[in-house]
């Protein structure tokens, strides 16, 4: 099988429906979270992925079950795309004991060992060194698998970004860096924080092959991710993928979003990842409206089941507060 | 070897309760050292030892009430080797015996003096091993409070949690003494005052002479003097008043001495008992020695030292027995004059009312002046009103030239 062939996306009917379903699941889940936050069911910080679904879904197609994923505090989409059950993720939003982190992590700290989903991270850039380490362990133990590290363009200003890229390049580690550049680090536009806003170019400093791709086009993202992931799997060292995307909602629930023009947001919405892909597949007759209606009904039910599950799930008993501080519970200091 | 006996601290004292030993067997003693605290109906009094030596055996334990004259402990004088102490088990606990126990002739074996325990650790020494021998848990604050109140930790029972804290010390203290938490037992004191006053009324043929004195000069001088003095050395009007009384008493010997066994012994020094009221009732009149020769600042300092000690129940036995006359000042209240009773065996007591603005004749006109009515009670067996009024007019003249006091 030549290299070029398997980098291209085979868009069968079945795959198109899969991509659309995955993006819609994330979209509906995040919209339900916004609603639940306003109802006080979800507390703390909540950073929604609406508008960026194509990145997680696209990249996830290039990863194998044994690959590892490190993400950020905007990681609901990545978790769902990776296969974490909506019930467990929603219960974690509620802080329930059946949540993916026993209710202790909340929105910014979704974890799943079985999915090798090494979590959200509330510290900007905090995940990059972690990904480098996971890849180092694979290399030292002779395992050929990819560690995919998602982060935002804001992290590019953190020291850990430069330190991690250097280590990955220096030690030829199997890391796929995916920078989801949504143009705003909370309230600061990219041009106000980066002397060189072309994030992709930063990888060149460390000799890491990089590519920028339209983060609103799930097929383009998948294709670029396949190219990068295969190179990493061939042992050619780390790869850097910048997906140019946009978040349709504020940084988090408690953000008046004054730093962006309304027109700019509306303009991006016109070319949203779900809208574009749905119109395209309908236009190619690959998928029909009835398929999409059934798809949307199934997803709505899935989300409602997740909410019911979270509502009914138990709180962790306060007596367990000290569990898991140390592996052997007896070591916990009083 | 000396037998140290329960001292007689007052004419009407016949028993005393040993509260606490301040010295331990083997301690070196110097004349005038305070070696124990004794509870009398007049309050807890520190008793001194009157000769040098080394404390031998303690015969009376804290809490025991013994008659005046009972042997409290033995003291070996320097030079004579001490008789070997009887081994503790054989020594019968000194029960309440009428006559002091005869000293037992025992072969003299020189005893090695025990090393004096360093004072600093003394505080932390376990002084109250509880019944099970386990070191009782005493909080630092409780140790300090118990020591300040002159309480032995051994007499305090710990709380339900086995700890002796401030609560337990306070409990022990109030049970033992007046509700006002001072070192004196007001109930005992009331009985003592009643006995003394009844005897005074019964035995002494009192007469009273009073005179109203214009104290304008005194207070003008005082105000001027105080305005020039820093806060810490300001004078109360009681100081010049006491000095004047002392000087006047010096010049009227019949009012300054003791009447004992039908004989009056005039005193050539003037030790003036200062009647001091205690919060919550009760009265004590410890003596201020040689008031006629002290200057005003010394009198103030003496008063400042005396009164808190009275309240804390910490008086030296000499202070209670040496007064040659007594001075009772009702200055705080509003009463104009008082007719006091003499403290036996003294023969006079001077009572002062409140110094207040009242009408007064000056050059034939009525004016408002600050006046003080002084009343002296005398013992007719020793003096009579004529001498008393000479005393009062001498006092009046002295007070007109306060700067000379």
């Amino acid at each position, binding site marked *: 099988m030549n290299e070029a062939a398997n980098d291209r996306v085979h868009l069968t009917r079945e795959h198109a429906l899969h991509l659309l379903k995955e993006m819609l699941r994330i979209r509906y889940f995040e919209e339900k979270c916004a609603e639940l936050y306003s109802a006080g069911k979800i507390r703390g910080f909540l950073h929604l992925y609406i508008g960026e679904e194509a990145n997680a879904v696209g990249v996830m197609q290039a990863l194998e079950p044994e690959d590892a994923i490190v993400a950020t505090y905007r990681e609901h989409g990545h978790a769902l795309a990776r296969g974490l059950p909506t019930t467990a993720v929603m219960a974690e939003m509620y802080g329930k004991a059946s949540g993916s982190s026993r209710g202790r992590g909340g929105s910014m700290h979704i974890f799943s060992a079985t999915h090798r989903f090494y979590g959200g991270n509330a510290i900007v850039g905090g995940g990059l060194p972690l990904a480098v380490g996971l890849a180092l362990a694979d290399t030292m133990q002779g395992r050929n698998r990819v560690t995919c590290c998602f982060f935002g363009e804001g992290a590019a200003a953190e020291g850990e970004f430069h330190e991690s890229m250097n280590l990955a390049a220096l030690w030829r580690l199997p890391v796929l860096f995916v920078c989801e550049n949504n143009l705003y680090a909370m309230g600061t536009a990219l041009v106000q924080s980066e002397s060189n806003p072309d994030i992709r170019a930063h990888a060149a400093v460390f000799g890491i092959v990089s590519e920028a791709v339209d983060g609103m086009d799930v097929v383009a993202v998948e294709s670029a991710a396949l190219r990068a992931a295969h190179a990493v799997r061939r042992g050619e060292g780390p790869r850097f993928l910048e997906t140019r995307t946009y978040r349709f909602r504020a940084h988090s629930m408690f953000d008046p979003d004054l730093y962006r023009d309304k027109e700019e947001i509306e303009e991006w919405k016109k070319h949203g990842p779900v809208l574009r892909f749905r119109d395209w597949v309908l236009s190619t007759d690959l998928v029909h409206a009835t398929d999409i209606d059934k798809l949307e009904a199934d997803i709505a039910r899935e989300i409602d089941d997740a909410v019911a599950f979270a509502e009914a799930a138990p709180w962790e008993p306060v007596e367990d507060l000290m569990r898991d501080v140390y592996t052997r519970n007896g070591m916990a200091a009083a | 070897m000396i037998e140290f006996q329960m001292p007689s601290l007052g004419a009407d004292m016949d028993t005393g309760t040993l509260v606490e030993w301040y010295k331990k067997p083997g301690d070196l003693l110097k004349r005038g050292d305070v070696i124990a605290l004794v509870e009398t109906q007049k309050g807890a009094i520190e008793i001194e030892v009157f000769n040098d030596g080394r404390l031998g055996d303690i015969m009376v334990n804290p809490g025991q009430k013994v008659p005046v004259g009972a042997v409290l402990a033995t003291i070996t004088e320097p030079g004579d080797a001490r008789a070997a102490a009887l081994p503790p088990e054989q020594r019968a606990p000194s029960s309440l015996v009428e006559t002091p126990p005869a000293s037992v002739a025992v072969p003299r074996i020189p005893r090695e003096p025990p090393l004096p325990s360093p004072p600093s650790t003394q505080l932390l020494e376990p002084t109250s091993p509880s019944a099970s021998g386990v070191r009782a848990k005493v909080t630092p604050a409780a140790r300090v409070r118990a020591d*300040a109140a002159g309480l032995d930790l051994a007499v305090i029972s710990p709380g339900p949690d086995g700890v002796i804290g401030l609560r337990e010390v*306070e409990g022990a203290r109030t049970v033992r003494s007046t509700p*006002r*938490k*001072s070192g004196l037992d007001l109930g005992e004191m009331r009985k003592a005052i009643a006995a003394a006053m009844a005897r005074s009324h019964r035995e002494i043929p009192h007469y009273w002479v009073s005179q109203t004195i214009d104290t304008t000069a005194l207070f003008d001088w005082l*105000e001027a003097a*105080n*305005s020039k003095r*820093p*806060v*810490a050395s*300001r004078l*109360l009007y*009681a100081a010049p008043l006491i000095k004047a009384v002392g000087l006047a008493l010096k010049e009227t010997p019949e009012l300054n001495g003791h009447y004992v066994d039908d004989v009056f012994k005039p005193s050539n020094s003037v030790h003036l008992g200062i009647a001091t*009221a205690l*919060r*919550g009732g009760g009265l004590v009149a410890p003596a201020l020695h040689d008031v006629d020769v002290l200057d005003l600042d010394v009198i103030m300092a003496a*008063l*400042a030292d005396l*009164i*808190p000690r009275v*309240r*804390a129940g910490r008086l030296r036995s000499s202070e209670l027995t040496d007064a040659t006359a007594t001075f009772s000042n009702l*200055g*705080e209240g509003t009463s104009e004059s008082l007719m006091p009773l003499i403290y036996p065996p003294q023969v006079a007591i001077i009572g002062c009312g409140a110094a207040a603005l009242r009408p007064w004749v000056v050059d034939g006109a009525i004016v408002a002046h600050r006046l003080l009515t002084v009343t002296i009670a005398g013992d007719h067996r020793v003096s009579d009103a004529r001498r008393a009024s000479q005393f009062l007019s001498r006092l009046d003249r002295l007070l007109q030239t306060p700067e000379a006091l």
Partner: protein
Amino acid sequence: MTDAELMNVVKDTLFSVAPDLEGEAIKPEETFRDQFEIDSMDFLNFVIGLHKRTGLEIPEADYSQLQTPADTVAYLRKHWSQASR
């Protein structure tokens, strides 16, 4: 200094003069004389204590403003420079 701190200064000075009063509840509006049978010697010592703590040269004419704990706090608030910071 807060009023609470000034009241503590008054309390600590009073207890140093009359240690047997420690632990008694203090009524801010009642005179020292009525609450605790404070006599002129105690009161002088109390004034001396306040002088040592605050450095204020409290003239005898001001004694009338120090009759109750609350008056004393007000007096300190007015005269003691450090209290106003």
